[in-house]
C-alpha cells in the first residue's frame, strides 16, 4: 500500500485554514464565524499531526491534545457569549453587534 505523501496533508491543511479565514472575514452569522474558527484550529491540528508522524516525534501529537482541549473550552465559552448576546439583541449578526463603537 502506497504511503500518501506529506504534501497532500499540508495542502489540505492550508486549504482548510484558508476556508476558515475567509469564513471569519466575510460571514455575518456569529455561529458560522465561530465554526470557521474551529476549522482553522483543526487545520493547524492536521499540520501538527502530519509533521509529528513524518518526523517520528510524539510532541506534535501531544500538542494536538492541548489544542483540542483549549478549543473545547473556548467553544463552550464562545457559545455562551453568543447566546447571551442573542438574548439581549435578538440577533447574532456580527455587523449589528457594535455597541463598543465610539
Amino acid at each position, binding site marked *: 500500500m502506497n504511503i500518501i505523501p506529506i504534501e497532500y496533508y499540508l495542502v489540505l491543511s492550508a486549504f482548510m485554514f484558508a476556508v476558515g*479565514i475567509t469564513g471569519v472575514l466575510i460571514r455575518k452569522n456569529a455561529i458560522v464565524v465561530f465554526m470557521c474558527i474551529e476549522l482553522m484550529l483543526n487545520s493547524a491540528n492536521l499540520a501538527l499531526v502530519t509533521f509529528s508522524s513524518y518526523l517520528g516525534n510524539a510532541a506534535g501529537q501531544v500538542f494536538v491534545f492541548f489544542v483540542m482541549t483549549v478549543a473545547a473550552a473556548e467553544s463552550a465559552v464562545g457559545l455562551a457569549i453568543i447566546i447571551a448576546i442573542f438574548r439581549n439583541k435578538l440577533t447574532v449578526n456580527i*455587523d449589528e453587534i*457594535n455597541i463598543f*463603537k465610539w
Partner: protein
Amino acid sequence: MIDYIYLTVLLPLIGFLINGIFGHKIKNEKIIGIIGSSTVGVSFLVALASFFQMLSLPVDQRKHVVELFSWLSAGGLNIKFAYLVDQLSIVMALIVTGVGFLIHVYSIGYMHADKSFWRFFAYLNLFIFAMMNLILGDNFVVLFLGWEGVGLCSYLLIGFWYDRKFEKGTTSQAAKKAFVVNRIGDFGFLLGMFLIYLTFDSLNFQEVFSKAELFPISGTVYGFIALFLFIGATGKSAQIPLFVWLPDAMAGPTPVSALIHAATMVTAGVYMVARCSIIFASAPAIMTVIAIVGLLTAFFAATVGLVQNDIKKVLAYSTVSQLGYMFLAMGVGAFSAGIFHVMTHAFFKALLFLGAGSIIHAMHDQQDIQHYGGLKKYMPKTYITFVIAALAISGFPGLSGFFSKDEILWNAYAHGSVLLWAVGILTALMTAFYMFRLLFLTFFGKERFSHDLHPHESPAVMTVPLIILAVLSVVGGYIGLPAVFSGENGNLFESWLSPIFSSAERRLEVYGSHGHFEEILLMMISVAAALGSIYLAYYIYTKKPEIASKTSRKFSKLYRLLLNKYYVDEVYEATIVQPLQKGSEKILWKIADNKIIDGTVNGAASLIDKTAALIRRFQTGFTQFYAFIMMVGIAIALFWIILSF
C-alpha cells in the same frame, strides 16, 4: 554671661510662642503683658550682664563668637548659626532690649482693652526676636534672617488695626506699602550678599572683613557691594528714595511707631553700614553718595515736618530726618558718631512717640495738633517729659541730642565739607522749629478741643517709662562727651567702639586735623541756631498765631508743596506703581498668563483631542474589520520573518 547671649534672642521667642499660641485663651491682660514684658526685661538684664563682663575684660578680648549650631551646609558654603558679641552689637542689643522693655511696659497701658491685646504682645516679642538676630548675627545670613524678620513684624504691626481707616486708604494698605518698599531695598541687600560671597568666598563677618582689610580688590567691586548694601539700608532706614513707607507706617499703634519706626528697626540700616564699615571705607565714591543722600533726606524730611498737622506725621518726618543725620555721619566716616546718634535718638524719639501716644490716648484718638492746645495743665508728666525730649532733639546744650548731633556736624565739617555742615545746621534749625511748633500747639495756647473730651494724665504704667526715657535723654549724652570737654579721657563712647571701626578709619585716613577752637565755635553756632528757632516757634505759635497763617498764605505754593510732601507719593504712583499695575494687567495677565500659559496648557489638551478624533475613525465597530487588520498584520510579520532568513 556672654556665653548665654542667645538667651536675649530665645526669651522673646518663647514669649512670642506663649502669647501667640495661648494668648487668646489667657485673656487676662496682666498675665499677657507680664509675659511679654518680662521676657524682654530678662533679655535686657542678660545683655547688661554681658556688657559689664565685657567691660571687665581687656580690649583685645572683648570680641566673642557664640556658636549655636551648623545651619546650612552645601558645597563650599557653610553657614553657622552663630552670634557675634562685640562692642558694637552689645551697644545695639542694650538699646533694643532696654528701650524695647520700656515700650512693652508702656503698651500694657496703651493697648488696654484692645480686642487683640495678646496678638499685639506676640508681635512685639517676635519683633525683638528678629531684631536681636539682626544685631547679633555673626554672618550675613543670620543678619538677613533678622532683616527680613523685622520687615515682617513691621508689616504685621502697621496693619495691626486692619479694620481701621488710614488717610485715603486702610491700614493694611499702609502695611503693604511698607512691606513692598522694604522688599525693593532687600533685593539690593541680597545682591550685595551674593557679590560678597562671589568676591570673598564667605559670608562670615570676620572672614569677609579680614579679607577686605588685607586684600584691596578692585575699587569697582567694593563700590558695587557698598552700593547694593546701601540700597538695602535706604529701604530699611527710610532714606531717599525709599523713605515713603515710614510716614505711612504711622497707621500702626503708637508704641509700634516708637519701638520699630523710631528707636530700633529703622536704625538697622545704620547698624549694617557700621558693621560693614571696612567695605564702605574701601568705596570712597559710595561714601560720598551716602553722605549726600543722608543729608538730602535729613533736609527734605525736615522741611516737610515744618507744616504737617498730624502729631505722628511730624514725628515720622523727624525720624526720617534724624536717620538722614546718621547716614551723613556714616558717609563722612564718623561711624561711632552715627551709632552714638542711634542711641540718643532711640531715647528721645521713643520718648517723643510715647509722649504723643499719651496725648493721643488722652484726646481719644485725635491726632491733629490743630485740635489740641493748652494740654499743659491736664497732663503735667507727659508735658515735662515731652519738653525734655524736644529739647534733646533740638540740640539744647547738655542734653543727649546736643552731643550726638554736634558730633555728627563736627565730623561733617572736619572730614566732609563746609557745605555738608551748613545744610546740617539748617536742618537742625528746622528740627528745633518744628519740634517746638508741635510742643507749643499741643501744650500751650487756647484749648481747641471740645470740652466733653476731658483730657487726663495717663496711668503710671505709661508715665513711668516716659520718665525713665526722659532721664536717659538727659544723661545719655554724657557717655559720649566730646574730647573738647572731657579732656584727656577723650570720647568714652568713641574709644569703646574704636576697635570695631579702626580698620575702616585707617583706610579712610580720617584723623582729627582741626583745632578745639573751631569745634567749640561750630557748637556755639548750632546752639544759637537751635535757641533762635525755639524762640521763633514760641513767638509765632503762642504770641502771634496769625503770623503762621499769613506766612502760609503768602507762600501758598511752597506751603502746598510741603504739605503734600513734595508729591513724592503721587510721583511714585504715576511713574512706578501705575505703570507696573497697568503692565501687569495688560501684559502679564492678559497676554502672558491668559494667552501664553493658559494657551499652552489648553493647546496641549486640544491637540490630543483633535488627534484622537482622527485616530478614532479606525475603531469602526465591525469585528471583521479588526480581524482583517489583525490578519494583514500577521501576514506582514510572517513575510518579514521569512524574508529575513
